[in-house]
Every structure is written in C-alpha cells, then in structure tokens.
C-alpha cells in the first residue's frame, strides 16, 4: 500500500480510520461516498470547484519567500499563504467542496461543528453562497468566548446552536452535530470540518484541501528550482497538514513535520497533542490517536489555539506517524506565541495562533536540518490562517490590551 492509494474501500489507513458510528448513519455515509466518487470523476463538478476556488476564494494562494524570517531562523522559509484566502484560512477549500457536494446530492441543508468558530464561519459562508440552510453547533463555552464569530455566522444567515452538554466544547459540538445528522440525514449533509470522522470524510476532506500541497510543490519548483527539504504544518484534527503533505508524500527527500499543540507542555497533561501525548483508540467515528484515560474516556484537550484544541487527530496522520513517513512533535503555547510575535515583527504578517505552531516547529527543526544537511535548509511552512480572530487572545497574552480590560490569557481561545 502507498499513501496515494489509501484509504482502502472501507476507509482504512492501515489499522486507522474506518467507521465507528451507529448503523443509522451508514446509508448516508455510503451515499456520500458514492456521490464523492462520481463527483471526483465528473469534469463539470471539478470545473465548478476550481472556478469557485479561483474566482471566489482567491486560490491558488501565494508561496512567499519570507526573507527576514529566514534570516532570523537560519533557514530558507517559504510561507504557503493560506491566510490570504477568503474567510482567512485553508478551510474555505473544504467547505466549498462539501457544499457543492451537498448541492449535487440534492440536500438543502448543511450542519457543521465548530470550536472557535472558524469552520462555522466558513460553512455559513459557503451555505450563503450556494443557497443552503445552515446550522452550526458550537459548545456553549465557545459561544461565550467567541461572540464575534457567532455574530458573523448569524450575519451570514446561519443558525448557531450552543451545546450545553458534556464539556461544552468542540468535541461536544461534534457529538451534537452527529445526533442532528442521525435524525435529519435525508435532507442534511454534515459538513465536517477536518480530515477525521467516519469514512469517507478523512479522504474527501483531504482531497478538497489537497490543492495546498499540489500548488506549493509546483510553486516551490518554480521559485527555487527544486523541492524543499521539509514541509511543516500544525496539526489539530489535521486538515491543513494533510492538505499540504499529501502531494509531497511520494517525494522521499522531503521531510514532513506535523506540529501538535503542546499546551502547557505534554508532561503537564494540559495539551492537545494526540499523537505525541495520546494513545490509540476510537473517537468520533474513526480509529486514531486520542487523549483518553485508562478507561477509554475522552480527556479534554488544552491549547491556547482554539483550532488545535481537539482530543483526536485524523486517521491518515496516525498512519503517517506509524509508518515514519511524517514526524509529529509538540509545540507549547509559549513556543507558538514567540513564533507568532516573530512573524509579526519580521514579516508584517499576523498569523493564526494555529499556524504559529507550524512556525515554531520550523524554528525547532531548522538547526537540526542545517546540521544534518550541512547547508541552509529550505522549509515550506503552511501558514494555514490569519490572526485577526486571535488579536484578543494574543493581545491578552502579551499584555498589550487596554489596561482597563482584564482578560485572563487563554480565556479567549
């Protein structure tokens, strides 16, 4: 088996992936799988998808040679500027693809789960554009912390449902979306926000965001005449990372690095590093690495970055980890915030705190690669999103907000 032919027909990446959901959803997943396979081979669907990406979302995003950051890190850093896409992140690729698929299946309604609200806003955007009804499930804790994104979704015409059970965060929003779906599956498509969940979601989300890597590979060859030495991305659920990795998997000279949210440090237990600090199990419809206690109960994750604050990870990452094709390492909140500040000051770009984890990871591997290669390494970093949404969190973290406002660091994630 090679990465390009995975998953198998039942959605397995080695021992990972698959379908661990109530039987009631299997027919819908089979229909989605069939619809996706036919859309994949339909030139008209692909043309419509590419047209929306090009003329609506602003894709392909730039591959930018970050000269001053490169000097600071001692490596040639090329930034894949997904932060410049419409709605400010790579996620627009996935939601446009899935919303088109919903239309194709004749489903008038989409539902989505969201943590900080980025996937919810992206889903509401695609739903507005394609005239779909949209309901977004969001943990009550998050609706309170991210009132602006709740307002954005409502402006775009979506219904936002605060989820009040469990830990009232992203994982509970996902549970609630699955409960909605099992009840409304005839008329509703579940627009899942990351490359995880039951088959075919990990595969189809990967394919919809896979343009990131295809573009970056071609842009890199054009810009520097060769492939990079390494590709770095942050990993929560893992959609931006699988999106940029996938095209590079056959290029054995290109090292792939996924940086998980180390929170306060993996050793403290307060983190969201499923691969480096978790163990194998089943959560949200697939077998993968997750944060769990000795009884298999899910443990709540912690990260300053809401987008990485999830106790599981997509199954393809679990497989890439076990085969050794990609390496996963944790990056702490503090390391990520230092990289956040560095990019602001050297390049005039405010990154999403998620993406700052990839930058911090690049800073960590730069000296190792330099030593190993005996020259300056070239690292493509997926700048998966922009930091506008994080200004409050970062401002509080750095203590640069108006002093009359008292905000506890991390409370705004």
């Amino acid at each position, binding site marked *: 088996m090679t990465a390009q032919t995975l998953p198998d027909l039942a959605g397995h990446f080695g021992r990972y992936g698959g379908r661990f959901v*109530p039987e009631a959803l*299997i027919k819908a997943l089979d229909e989605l799988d069939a619809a996706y396979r036919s859309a994949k081979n339909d030139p008209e669907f692909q043309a419509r998808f590419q047209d929306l990406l090009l003329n609506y979302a602003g894709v392909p995003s730039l591959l930018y040679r970050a000269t001053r950051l490169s000097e600071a890190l001692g490596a040639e850093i090329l930034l894949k500027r997904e932060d410049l896409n419409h709605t400010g992140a790579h996620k627009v690729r996935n939601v446009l693809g899935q919303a088109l698929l919903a239309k194709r299946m004749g489903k008038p309604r989409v539902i989505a789960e969201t943590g900080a609200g980025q996937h919810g806003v992206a889903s509401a955007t695609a739903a507005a554009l394609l005239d779909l009804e949209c309901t977004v499930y969001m943990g009550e804790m998050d609706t309170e912390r991210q009132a602006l994104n709740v307002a954005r979704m409502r402006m775009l015409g979506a219904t936002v449902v605060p989820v009040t059970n469990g830990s009232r965060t992203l994982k509970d929003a996902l549970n609630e979306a699955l*409960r909605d779906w099992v009840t409304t599956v*005839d008329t509703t498509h579940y627009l899942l926000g990351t490359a995880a969940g039951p088959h075919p979601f990990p595969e189809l989300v990967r394919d919809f965001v896979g343009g990131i890597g295809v573009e970056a590979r071609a842009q890199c060859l054009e810009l520097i005449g060769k492939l990079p030495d390494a590709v770095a991305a942050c990993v929560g659920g893992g959609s931006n990372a699988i999106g940029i990795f996938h095209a590079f998997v056959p290029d054995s000279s290109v090292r792939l690095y996924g940086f998980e949210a180390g929170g306060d440090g993996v050793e403290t237990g307060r983190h969201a590093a499923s691969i480096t600090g978790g163990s194998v199990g089943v*959560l949200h419809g697939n077998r993968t690495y997750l944060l*769990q206690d000795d*009884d298999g109960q899910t443990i709540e994750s912690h990260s300053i970055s809401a987008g990485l604050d999830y106790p599981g990870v997509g199954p393809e990452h679990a497989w890439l980890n076990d085969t050794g094709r990609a390496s996963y390492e944790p990056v702490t909140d503090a390391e990520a915030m230092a990289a956040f500040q560095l990019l602001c000051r050297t390049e005039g770009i405010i990154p999403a705190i998620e993406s700052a984890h990839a930058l911090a990871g690049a800073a960590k591997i730069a000296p190792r690669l330099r030593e190993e290669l005996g020259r300056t390494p070239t690292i493509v970093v997926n700048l998966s999103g922009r930091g506008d949404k994080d200004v409050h969190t970062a401002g509080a973290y750095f203590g640069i907000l108006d002093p009359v406002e008292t905000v506890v660091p991390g409370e705004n994630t």
Partner: protein
Amino acid sequence: MSIAETFAKAKSENRSVLVGCMPAGFPTVDHSIEQMIAMHEAGCDVIEVELPYSDPVMDGPVIQKASDIALANGVRTRDTLKIIDAVSNAGATVVLMTYWNPIEKYGVDAFARDLAAAGATGLITPDLIPDEAQEWIAASDKHQIDRTFLVAPSSTDERLAMTVANCRGFVYATALMGVTGARTSVSSQAPELVARVRKADPAMPVGVGLGVGTGKQAAEVAAFADGVIVGSALIRCVLEAPDRATGLDRLRALSAELAEGVRSRV
C-alpha cells in the same frame, strides 16, 4: 437465564420481553445496583446496563445527563463489571450496552472474558458495526457472549441481512432515525423494520428501542416485536425525583406498568 431462553419463555407466554436500561454508577454505584434490582423485581426481564461514556453520540439528553453524573461521581469500567455481577447474582438476565472505545482500551478479549465472568449474557454495541467487529466477534465467540448489533430504518436489505447474520441472542432495531429518548408516539417506521428483520431471519428475536416510555406504547410495540427496550423514561424516574425513595417508587411503578404493557399486545 440466557437471552435465548428469556425470549423463548416470553414467546411461550405469548408476550414480549421487557428490556430496561440504566447507566452503571448513576447516580452512584450502589444506587444503580439498587435501581436495577428494583427494575428486575418489578418486571423487567432483561436489565440493560449502559456503560457511561464521555461521548455518547447515539444518546439523547436524558441518558447523556445520567452518564455525565455517573462519570462525575467517578464510575470506572471495573465498577460496571461489579454492578453486572451484583445484578446478575440477584437473578436478573443482564446485557451490557457500551460504546466501543472503553472496550478497546480494556482489551477486547480480556473484556469479553471479564464480562462473561461477571454474569452478563450479551453485549449491545451502538457504534460498532459488524464490518469493524472482527476482533469482537472472535472474543465473543470464545467467551460465549451474545452479540447485539443495531439495525435502523435506513439499513439497506443487504446490510440488514449481514447485520442480523452477525447477531446472536437478539437484534436491536432502532425504531426511528434519531437518538434515545421517550417520544409521544410510537414510530411508524418500527413495524416495517421488524418485518424486514423477520424476513432476513425468522428465528432471530427483535428488540425495538428508541422512543418507548409508557405501558401503552410498550403494548403497541409488543404487538409486533419480540422485545421492548426502554431507557430514558426509566432513568427520568430517578433523575427527576425529589428524593431517593420517590425515585425508586416511580421506577418500580413504571417497570410494572411496562411489564403489563408487554403482556397486553394491543
């Protein structure tokens, strides 16, 4: 009594089997044992112990809340096994319902072994489909645990036949497209689903769950199904009671009402 014997006995009495569900450790380990024994004594033929799980995607608000309470009070997987042991020792036929991850974490073969040793006769797996169940099928064969998979109104004929073929004991028919929780009326999709299961395997007992909460509804379902599965309505007796004694009284009263229902078959 085994599941097969329980269903055969009910059939000989021209009635349906009443399956009553209660989360382990809700609100505490001892109280849940007391509740399950009360349900057994008041007429539940089978006690379905639900292992509380942090992410119960198939369950509605009542079971979620009860599970959260049990977990907050510190219930562990080994407590669930202890509870099963106590309730089966009291003479009840016990099956366990659990999401898959706690079993995978425990170790599939070890769990089947310990479940059998505790006296459970079967396992219901709401998020494990036969397609992913090779390891469970082997372990449950080895340790003689009955396997109950779910079928749904959306199941294709092909999947339904495959699922029923992998069940032993009884098959769980989810009466409607949705999550657990009492409804005001019995699902119109349920009779057809039961008929489809019978067509796939006339000998396999069918239990119908989701949405049943009163004796009248139990009688309606008993008219076409071999088993009637009730969870949320029973749990609510305890959840909403002003004190413990009232909760147990209500639990006994509802169990008796449901037991009468499965004997009326209207």
